[in-house]
């Protein structure tokens, strides 16, 4: 029965996608626009590789943000956590610690920040806004303490290779972003904890009364977000070959933006990893395209804000019509 219906169902799915896909269309239009403006540069292999390289760390942080936003919360501390993780790894290596130890400690730090967020929100009932704003503030402070307010550099070449090296002519962070995205997607889609996150994001009370362990699930979501943010931060430090207390902070706003854009892609209006990656793509294409056109770099931030407003307004109109 399922096999005979498959083509019809696929057709339906495509139709639905086009109907829902205002955001996807926006991404395509952006690509066409920049290609038309600079056909000699924009869609060349080198430039596409550049775009992927530029968005790879944002993609990882946005993946972390997607997890908490599926649960119906959000995490303002992801950017700060990534900075702190990069700084901790850097400080360790400068102090002579082996690379594996530096990375492990940095990951542990991210895990702990996430755990603290989770305890505050799931068990002490703070709102996500207050809790993650507070941890963000403290975490930035820790990062300044670790870096002593300076920029750390002179990391071992093997470490920098993680962020700057290439495999098959593709930068290594792109592989990291790909693998982490697929893992997060699979966890959200196939595991009991992932489905619990979806249920809680849909309706906390029904989930609780149906026996979902809401507190534990929310705690886990924030812990995962902290850990994944730390991975992003370590890769960023490797890519730049340096670590400062604020180098990850832009990624917080952009990660929320990417998830918001992605929420407009699917019918249920929930955060979803595929959509988030489309959002990351829009942000990446825009910033790269505007760079190529020689537009002032700060304008991309202005435009990103406007695009979020447009996308969310449009998806709001769609649900209101229903």
């Amino acid at each position, binding site marked *: 029965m399922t096999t005979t219906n498959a083509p019809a169902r696929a057709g339906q799915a495509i139709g639905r996608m086009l109907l829902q896909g205002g955001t996807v269309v926006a991404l395509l239009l952006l690509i066409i626009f920049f290609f038309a403006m600079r056909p000699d540069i924009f869609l060349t292999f080198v430039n596409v590789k550049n775009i992927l390289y530029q968005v790879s760390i944002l993609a990882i942080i946005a993946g972390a943000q997607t997890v908490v936003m599926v649960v119906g919360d959000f995490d303002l501390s992801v950017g700060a956590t990534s900075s702190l993780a990069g700084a901790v790894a850097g400080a360790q290596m400068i102090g002579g610690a082996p690379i594996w130890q530096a990375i492990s400690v940095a990951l542990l730090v991210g895990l702990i920040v996430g755990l603290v967020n989770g305890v505050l929100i799931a068990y002490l009932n703070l709102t996500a806004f207050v809790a993650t704003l507070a941890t963000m503030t403290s975490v930035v402070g820790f990062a300044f303490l670790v870096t002593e307010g300076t920029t750390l550099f002179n990391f071992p070449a093997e470490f920098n290779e993680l962020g700057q090296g290439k495999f098959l002519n593709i930068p290594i962070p792109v592989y990291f972003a790909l693998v982490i995205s697929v893992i997060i997607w699979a966890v959200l889609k196939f595991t009991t904890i992932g489905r619990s996150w*979806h*249920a809680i994001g849909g309706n906390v009370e029904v989930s609780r009364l149906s026996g979902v362990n809401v507190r534990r699930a929310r705690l886990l979501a924030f812990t995962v977000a902290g850990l994944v943010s730390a991975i992003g931060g370590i890769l960023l430090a490797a890519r730049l070959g340096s670590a400062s207390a604020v180098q990850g902070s832009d990624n917080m706003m952009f990660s929320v933006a990417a998830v918001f854009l992605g929420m407009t892609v699917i019918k*249920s209006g929930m955060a979803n990893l595929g959509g988030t990656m489309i959002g990351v793509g829009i942000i990446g294409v825009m910033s790269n395209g505007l760079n190529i056109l020689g537009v002032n770099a700060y304008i991309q931030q202005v435009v990103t804000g406007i695009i979020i407003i447009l996308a969310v307004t449009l998806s709001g109109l769609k649900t209101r019509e229903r």
Partner: protein
Amino acid sequence: MSATNASTEVPMALEARDIFKHFDGVHALSGVKLSVKTGEIHALLGENGAGKSTLVKVITGIYTPDSGEILRNGESVEFANVRVANRAGIVALYQELSIIPSISVAENIMLGEQTPSKGGIVQWAELRKRAQEQLDRLNQKIPLNRLAGELSPVQQTMVAFARALATDARVLILDEPTASLTDTEIKDLFAVLRKLRDQGVAIIYVSHRLEEVFELCDRLTIMRNGETIITKDVQESNIEEVISNMVGRAAGQLYPERGTATTEVALTVEGLNGRRVKNVSFTAHKGEVLGIGGLAGSGRSELLRILAGAQKHSTGTVTVGEEALPSSPSVGKALDAGIALVPEERRSQGVILSASIQDNIALANIPSVSSLGIVSGVKISTITKRGMLDLQIKARGPHQNVGELSGGNQQKVVLAKMLARKPKVLLMDEPTRGIDVGTKAEIYRLIRELAAGGTTVIAVSSELPELIGMSDRIIIMHEGQISGEVEAAVADDELLLTYCYGKAN
């Protein structure tokens, strides 16, 4: 069943013994007894506020009783939370809490601990198979992949019901399960319930629809004022007996004298249609207290919200005195025309708990306490003092936060806020919900004083004695329409209940 020997006592599937539970000094349950046999459908009946929901919540571990004992198969049990009760086979299906709109039908059915998994990985094939089995048991053809939020309300109820079945409930508690179902669907549901009963499931059936109870149930228990009045076989009872047991006898001199109504028309409603409101027409007079009754979901609250400009209507007119309200109303326009609403949910719709009495009262009166956009502290304090004095609000002062006041005093703040607008027509939705008896009497007196001063009061209440006691005239709604109208002086509970259930005159 194998246990045929009558001398060996078969333990009850579920038994509640002498359950006491109180909230803020008010007794919600006083010595409740309920016993449900394995393999029976047991109706739990009572008016709104009789304590049915509280009892259900005690049984399912949401509330902990102050004292008393719950027995499952004859053994004393304590449920710390819903999950523990679920594991003991006790599952409640609530009318208002049904589905998660953003996930699929299959996942809704197999939610939480029912999700089949191996090593933390969801077994989708198994999940879909078991979800389909539950839908088949209900004779429902609902696509498993659809988002539950896209289903009709009927289908959503069925999905919620399938979830209860999926948990392998041995004691199943259903709260108004047929509220949004058609006759065919009700027949299917009843067939399933009978099948479950024959398989040894104990079912507690909470419903306002007495005909259904007599068609479906084996035994019934009636509650009133937090006590269990009677338990007997359905076959040995009849609707009249049930109603008189549900109603009991009304309280004494809680209500002030009637007789302030005039013949001058203050409000005319003609052919009003809107969400849950169908072709409603009536008039209300100056100085009259008009009560509006009906079951939950009958459209009574929606009617008030339309009159107050808080909800749109599609057709119909509302006229205050001589002045017709604009066809696209807003709360502001309704207030300007002299219609004010004291809403049902006091804590979420009536007052801002974190703000002071003074700020709450100022909120609805900004035009009269400000000029050129500047708010006058003197004017605010004047109207606040007057309101607190007139309504005898018990508080430390105008600056105390409303959240610190008792329910009765919070309600008086809502009243003061609206009365400062000097409304011609005051709408009140459940004017005494969650208020102790002493303050109730005060509210009734206030309502009557307002009427004596020429205000028209239209009050919705789900408590029939209150409806009769405080009103001059009563309108009853059923499924959005007016199903009956009666002078309060000659009304009795049985007549009103008949109207509530939509029976013809």
